[in-house]
């Protein structure tokens, strides 16, 4: 699966959250990062080039700070220019059909405020309806968004969890599934550079950890099988 991340931010260099995400990117040839303000400082978008980029990827992600319940202006401009009729919709406009679309939102206000009675009053699902409609109109499957609330207040532990969640969001078919995350984690543990750990036993422990995750999976599948059998 090839993933395209379109980042839009008026000043990427000075955003600690965006810098954290960029640093968190997994080393994978399957992921393309495209920073719009960097590519088009004058706002003149190369429409054909952008459309080619879209065609080459299976999962399209918009990553941006959630400003006034929407994206920074260049990303909106990008949508207006690139997602044109006969490409994204309308007669023979099927180039995005069957792809996946998702949002990676960096949000300044706390999560609990995005609900009825909260300070913001509306949920993220309600406020992102135009993006859902865009995915719907262009025939893309809308993924659950990855919403990052109040990044500066996150603890170190929460930031590490975010790093992993972000990587999984970019690389896994169904990042919510425990089984999919197990497979991903095993692969990452197998590939991690043991030289970076100052312990002689690191190889042994990592192998044991992988074995434990695999054994647990077998037990989980077996339990599930017994439960399903009982319901027959």
């Amino acid at each position, binding site marked *: 699966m090839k993933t395209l991340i379109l980042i839009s931010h008026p000043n990427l260099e000075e955003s600690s959250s965006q810098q954290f995400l960029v640093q*968190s990117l997994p080393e994978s040839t399957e992921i393309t990062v495209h920073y719009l303000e960097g590519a088009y400082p004058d706002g003149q978008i190369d429409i054909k080039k952008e459309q080619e980029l879209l065609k080459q990827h299976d999962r399209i992600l918009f990553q941006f700070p959630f400003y006034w319940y929407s994206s920074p202006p260049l990303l909106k401009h990008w949508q207006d220019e690139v997602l044109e009729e006969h490409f994204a919709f309308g007669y023979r406009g099927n180039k995005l059909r069957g792809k996946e679309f998702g949002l990676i939102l960096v949000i300044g206000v706390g999560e609990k405020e995005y609900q009825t009675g909260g300070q913001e009053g509306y949920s993220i699902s309600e406020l992102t309806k135009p993006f859902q409609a865009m995915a719907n109109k262009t025939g893309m499957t809308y993924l659950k968004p990855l919403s990052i609330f109040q990044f500066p207040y996150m603890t170190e*532990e929460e930031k*590490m*969890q975010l*790093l*992993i969640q972000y990587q999984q969001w970019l690389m896994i078919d169904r990042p919510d599934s*425990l089984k999919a*995350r*197990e497979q991903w*984690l095993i692969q*990452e*543990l197998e590939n*991690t*550079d043991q030289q*970076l*750990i*100052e*312990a002689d*036993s*690191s190889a042994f*422990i*990592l192998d*044991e*950890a992988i074995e*434990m*995750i695999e054994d*647990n*999976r077998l*037990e*989980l599948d077996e*339990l*599930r099988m*017994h*439960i399903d059998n*009982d*319901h027959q």
Partner: protein
Amino acid sequence: MEDKQWMLAQLTDLFHKSRDYKQKALLMAAKELIEEQEKRKEQLQGELDGTLWNPGNWNG
């Protein structure tokens, strides 16, 4: 259960001995995943026990 505790302690040790931020995050995620699997096992075991004790199944 003891195996799990031993493994979590070993992963914590590697976490402290790793010199790489991304690797530390990965080791922490491994610990959390093992905990999550353990919790899921308990839930499924509970569901299985509940099913066995379900009077609806007694005549089966």
